[in-house]
Every structure is written in C-alpha cells, then in structure tokens.
C-alpha cells in the first residue's frame, strides 16, 4: 500500500494520505458533488483499514467547506471511528473564524474520536 496525495483544485482541498496513519486535508472544499472528489480518499482508507490499521491522526485545516463536503468529512471520520484501532482529529481553524471552530465542535458531537482544536 502506498501513500497518496490528491492535489488541491479550485474547488477542492489537498488530501495527503500516509501509510504511517497520518491524514491531512487542507484548503477549501466547495464542490457541488463532493462524493466524486472524496471517492479516492474513501477507497484508500478502506484498503488502509483492512491492510494496515494503525492509529490514525487526521489533521483538518479547512478555510471553508459546504454542506456536501460536510457529509464526506463526517463519512471519513465515522469510518475511522468504527474501523481503526484508535485515532484523533486535529482541527485547525482560522483565528478570526468562530464558525469553523463551531463546525469542528459539531463534528465531534457526532463521533467518539478525540478532537484537538488549534487556531491559526
């Protein structure tokens, strides 16, 4: 199994997937069909959880995400919640944007994974 990088586009974030268990999603996410954009990430994670499955740290550093993307982010974190042997989320948000902090706190309510919040 290899590391994978999905390069950022005008609409979608950069996604770095490492077999060491580090996942980083950064940038903005505002595509209308987010399921298409995040498919590769979900496929990679499916294989990872089957083959490697060490603890996963997800770093989320998003400046914006729409409701279609929220579903894909929750899907990712729910898969880790249910399938991995432990993990955590580091939620990095712009210091001047409380909404993005609240969005992170809201995802936390729906999950068992621990969250760390960092303003930037």
């Amino acid at each position, binding site marked *: 199994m290899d590391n994978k990088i999905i390069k950022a586009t005008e609409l979608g974030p950069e996604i770095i997937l490492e077999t060491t268990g580090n996942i980083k999603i950064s940038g903005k996410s505002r595509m*209308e069909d987010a399921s298409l954009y995040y498919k590769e990430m979900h496929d990679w994670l499916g294989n990872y959880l089957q083959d490697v499955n060490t603890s996963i740290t997800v770093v989320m550093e998003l400046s*914006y995400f729409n409701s279609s993307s929220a579903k894909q982010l929750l899907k990712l974190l*729910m898969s880790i919640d249910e399938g991995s042997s432990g993990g955590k989320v580091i939620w990095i948000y712009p210091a001047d944007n409380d*909404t993005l902090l609240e969005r992170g706190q809201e995802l936390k309510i729906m999950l068992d994974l621990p969250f760390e919040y960092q303003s930037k």
Partner: protein
Amino acid sequence: MVKGLNLIGLLRKCFFEDKICMFYRGNFDDTFTDKLISLADYDVEKKAKKRISFLMSESFQNIIRHGNDELSTQNNNLFGIRAVAPFLDIFSSNLVNNKDKAFLEEKLDVINKLDKDQLKAYYNKVLEEGSLSKKGGAGLGLIEMAKKSQKPIQVEFRKLENDVFAFNMQIDLIVDEHASAELLSNPMSIEENTSMYDLMVDNNMIFLYKGDFTDETISPMLNILEGNTGDKSKSKNGYKIYHAAVELMQNVIRHSSNAETKEGIFAINEAKNGCYLCTGNYIAGQGKGLEEHVKKINSMNKEELDALYRQQLKASVKLPNNNAGVGLIDLRRSFMTPLEVKLVEDKIGTYLTIGIEIPFS
C-alpha cells in the same frame, strides 16, 4: 421597491432573452477582473472567447482608469455582461468629472468614426505621440476596444450633480457572425442597460446573475464574493454571504429540471441591516414537501435546528447519493432568519424561488 422573492419574478421578465447575464455594482479593484473574465469562458468559439476576455478586461480597466476616487461614494460603479444573440454586450458605468468627460467625449467621437484600418493607424499615432493623460491613459484602451468590438462604442453621459457625470459605456461584440444582417445591425441600445442600472439602484441590488449553474460557471462569481471578504473587518459578514451563496447556488444545480443546462437566477440585495440573497430556477418534479420542510425548519429554534442538522447529516452518510440534504437547514440555523420559498406552476414546469436575509454583525 420590489422586495424579497418578487425580485426574481422581475428579473425573469427583464432578462427573458438573455442566455447569460451578470451585473455587479460596487467598488472594484484590480483582482476583480481576472475572476470576472473566467465568466466569459462559456460556449463560444475560441476566437470570440479571446476577444470577450480582452474586452471585459479593458472596459473594466477603464472604470479603474477613468473612475474618479474623489467622486466615488459607495456602489456607483457598475459592470455588466449580457449575452443576447447574436451579441455579447459589455456595459460599464462609473462617475467622472467635467474634465474626464471632455477627454472621453473627444476620444470616443474620433474613434467611433473610424473603420478598422483607420483605427489601427490612429492607435499607432497615439502611441507614438505618447500624449498620456494624467491617469496614465492615452485612450489606447478605448481604441483597442473599438478595434475588437466591430461596432461603434455606445456612450452616454448622465449629469448627476454640477461636476459629476455617470459615464455609461457599452461594447457590442458579435459572437454569432452567421446571424441575419438585420439582427447584426441592431445591437441592444445602451438605454436598456442604463435602465437596468436604475433598476438595480432602485432595488438596492448589488449582484445579479442569470445563466447556467454548474461548478464551472458559478466558480468565478463565488471567487468574486470570496475575494470581497478579504477585508478583516468585513470578513465575518463576507463569510456569511459567501456561504449562503455557495449553498443557494448549489441548490439550483442539484434540483434543476434540466439535467444539461441547469439555468437559474441569483441575486444579492442590500437589506436594512445586512443583505438578501435569492435564487430562482425550474425544478425537477413539483417540489412537493419542500414548502412543508421549510415551514417546519422556520418554526424551529437554534438548538432544534442543530440537532436536526446532525441527525440528517449522519443519516445521509449511509446513503449513496451526493446530497447531504442539510443545505437549507444549515442556512436557516446560520442566520436564524426565516427562509422564503415560492413555487409557481407555469407552462414549462414548476419554478422555485428561495430567498434568505443575512443579518450583519
């Protein structure tokens, strides 16, 4: 003044024949141009695309070049494009003083009398003489525009105050050269667009778009809105507008009746303590259940809405489709103002309009 969702009805009538149209009223900066140009990136021949980009850029630069900062209060600059076959019309309006007016009138009077070859020669002459105006323009941009537009530049000065004029300019670009001679000789009159300007001012409208809604076509608009949120003091409100625009526009894409063209209207108006965003489009099906859904979420408090959002989002993860089904709930809970919806049946199908007021903090 037309308020709320009725605006969409008015705009549908005004732009009935427009394939694409976009108007933006406000204060511009240089970065606006690049973003705007990609709007022209629609289904026209490559050659025409290049000319459109150039002309949009130049007429926009013209606002910046000749626009008078001292005269400008808020929102008196307007930039618009309209695709009404066989033309693409580029309209701009900005304030100038008497001196600028005289310079522009003199230049445009000469330019509009010249044919293609004469324009070329005149361009070289002005370039050689190098008689730059105070603001760095020698009218070269105007000559370039005339060279590329194939039609005389339409101009109108409207006196507003003693030494203040609205300088309205329209370039008519032929995008369908195979159209009948009669159509080609009759571009839209500039008065139609100056009355659009009045309509926008009368209704406190700052942005409007009619055309296809796809990720590609809405992207330049969202980039403009996103760009305008750069100012830290305004960033909180800018983020709100941007988020509402994303969700409303994508709602049009998702529920459009036509799988290919996904045509709709989007507008932003200034409201008393914020702004009002609305969309209109034909939807697939009759929208049954939508009015009930909106009525339900309009009656909920923030806590209830947050709980419903989480419940719906979590449930959607198990579903294979793209839609999270939480866009409207999210809009309602983000601003805590009531969502307005209206469904109208006509010969074509069911037309849906959605609007929401965004209070500024």
